[in-house]
């Protein structure tokens, strides 16, 4: 009975850790948000097939999700009353101009690195000071938006071999009770979707939606909770 209670408590503690979570910097609460115009940059998606011993990227799946997600995020934010810039550069425009192509790529990579750091030490983020640097100012000539929204996705497609290994590991470590909570085992694909709201002038990260293991729907629900 005692073991069962410990397992249940453990599973209950682990559940929120896997969910997306919103972190706000002090600048977010201070800033007047009425004049904000948001630009949702094309999402980055890395889709991996987690087979035993190796991983492979699935480019078709990644590209399909990238195209779909940016539009969904823009729509979700607009429905919440945020102003969305319509002059945001599209994928084709980015690929034509090599200057903006590498700038956007650099900012996205920098954002992913910082997101991982913030996830490790969220308290430091709440006290402010996380920034992409002055490089964001180079985006100003291309868009009138004051806030840049970066969306990044990491997806894992789970194969049968992985499912068998997961099953064995779950049984070994937590007994049958763990199976009830190990939702990944029954899912075909696991997504970790996160987003960052970056000040277009200073490069400061104002808000971070920490990547969680829900699908796109769960992520959009988290966006709805953003304080306006």
């Amino acid at each position, binding site marked *: 009975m005692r073991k069962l209670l410990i397992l249940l408590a453990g599973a209950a503690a682990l559940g929120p850790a896997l969910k997306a979570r919103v972190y706000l910097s002090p600048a977010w609460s201070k800033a007047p948000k009425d004049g904000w115009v948001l630009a949702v940059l094309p999402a980055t998606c890395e889709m991996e097939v987690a087979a035993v011993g*190796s*991983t*492979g990227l699935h480019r078709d799946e990644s590209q399909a999700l990238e195209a779909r997600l940016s539009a969904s995020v823009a729509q979700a934010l607009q429905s919440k009353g945020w102003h969305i810039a319509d002059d945001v550069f599209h994928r084709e425009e980015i690929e034509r101009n*090599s*200057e903006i*192509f*590498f*700038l956007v*790529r*650099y900012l996205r*990579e*920098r954002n*992913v*690195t910082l997101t991982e*750091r913030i996830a*490790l*030490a969220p308290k*430091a983020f709440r006290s402010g*000071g*996380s920034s992409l640097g002055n*490089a964001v100012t*180079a985006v100003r000539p291309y868009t009138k938006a004051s806030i840049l929204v970066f969306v990044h996705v990491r997806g894992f497609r789970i194969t049968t071999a992985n499912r068998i290994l997961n099953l064995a590991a779950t049984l070994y470590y937590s007994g049958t009770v763990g199976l009830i909570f190990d939702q990944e085992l029954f899912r075909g694909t696991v997504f970790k979707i996160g987003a960052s709201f970056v000040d277009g002038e200073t490069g400061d990260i104002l808000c971070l939606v920490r990547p969680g293991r829900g699908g796109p729907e769960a992520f959009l629900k988290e966006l709805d909770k953003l304080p306006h």
Partner: protein
Amino acid sequence: MALVCGRRAVLALVLALPGFVLNTANSSGLYANAGGPNRLYLNANARGGVPKLLVLVPPIGQRKVLGAVHVKNVEDADARAREVSALIVKALVRGGWQVDEDSFAGPSPPADAALRNAIAYVRERYAQMAVEMTAKPKDVTKGKFSFGPDISILGSGRKDRALLLVNDSSVKLTNFPIGVFVGGMRAGGMPGVTVSLVDPETGVVLCFVRAEDRREGALAKTFSKIPHRRIGDDR
């Protein structure tokens, strides 16, 4: 009660001793052996040789303190990465390679904005890729790691050169007592300094080196194992 506390303190000291010894060995400076030989992973497609002329991309430095990244220390980390990079360049030159240090990493950055952004992107991507390559180094031999053909802007259309990327992501040792344990235990297994040679046309990583032993002789010996072809040879 005092006796129990005393026993615990002695036990803690005994447990801390191996970490402390490793820490002392590791903190003897930049040129120390971090706990093992250097590892070289060569892409199977690069067995024919890597161009002998290497273009240095500004090195990347990330210092960590007890698992959390010390953001305030970035400038210090970059300075240390430059120091490590100079050492690696010296070892490469000793091994017969030619290294162009001024094209990208010189005192003045490139005037072309696209080139400047491309360098920034490659540096940032490599910082992440180095962690992935350290975790799965055998994938380098299969040619799975690539920056993509988009970075051909860095090659300037010349086939006789490769990009030299250096990443230093060492753990900074602190005076905090737990650092004795963490730093000591991580001394042998942390990524540390990594070096990669990249084909600028295809973006594929040709070879990856985990530079655990940072003595010049050991580095030169490792780099001498990479087959190189002379400038002007056909591909």
